């Protein structure tokens, strides 16, 4: 759910993303029906790219999380907040230990931001992601 929240927040900034010439691609290691269902259920309009071997995940330092990071107090707090807001818990369908993150690449192909979440709820603020693109406003 926290990843979906992050994407939801990004969608709320869609106009700014377009103004700043930012393309978004979502990367997943899942495949098959789970991927199709996700696109359908979330009405995802950005490309969902499958990195089944997790080659790109690993290249950007996104490995397996520790038990504490995945199930510790900060994660519990985030899920409780989401439940409070009416989100439903879903049974995880695949590897829950894989960490996620965000990578921002500039128009010349240089990495500007490489953010690996230490836990499910750890994502950069949208303002942090947009900051390097300020000159494109």
């Amino acid at each position, binding site marked *: 759910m926290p*990843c979906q929240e*992050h*994407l939801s927040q*990004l969608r709320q900034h869609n106009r700014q*993303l377009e103004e*700043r*010439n*930012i*393309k*978004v*691609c979502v*990367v*997943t*290691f*899942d495949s098959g029906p789970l*991927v199709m*269902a*996700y*696109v359908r259920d979330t009405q995802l309009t950005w*490309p*969902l*790219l*499958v*990195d089944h071997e997790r*080659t*790109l*995940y690993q*290249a*950007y*330092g*996104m*490995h397996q999380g520790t038990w504490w990071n995945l199930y510790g107090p900060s994660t519990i707090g985030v899920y409780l907040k989401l439940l409070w807001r009416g989100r439903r818990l*879903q049974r*995880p*369908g*695949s*590897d*829950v230990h*894989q*960490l*996620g993150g*965000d*990578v*921002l*690449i*500039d*128009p*010349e*192909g*240089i*990495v500007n*931001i*490489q953010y*690996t*979440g230490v836990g*499910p709820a750890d994502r950069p603020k949208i303002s942090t*992601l947009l900051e*390097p*693109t300020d000159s*494109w406003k």
Partner: protein
Amino acid sequence: MQNRVGKPAVPFVLYGVLGQPHRLEDYRDHWLLLVFHRHLG
């Protein structure tokens, strides 16, 4: 963890849900935000 900030992005060819390829170079001249999802389920 290898910090690649300030370095060239890792080249990739990944496939979308309909099997269409997406390459890093397809996004040249744009900012590209890769959002790495945890498990989808």
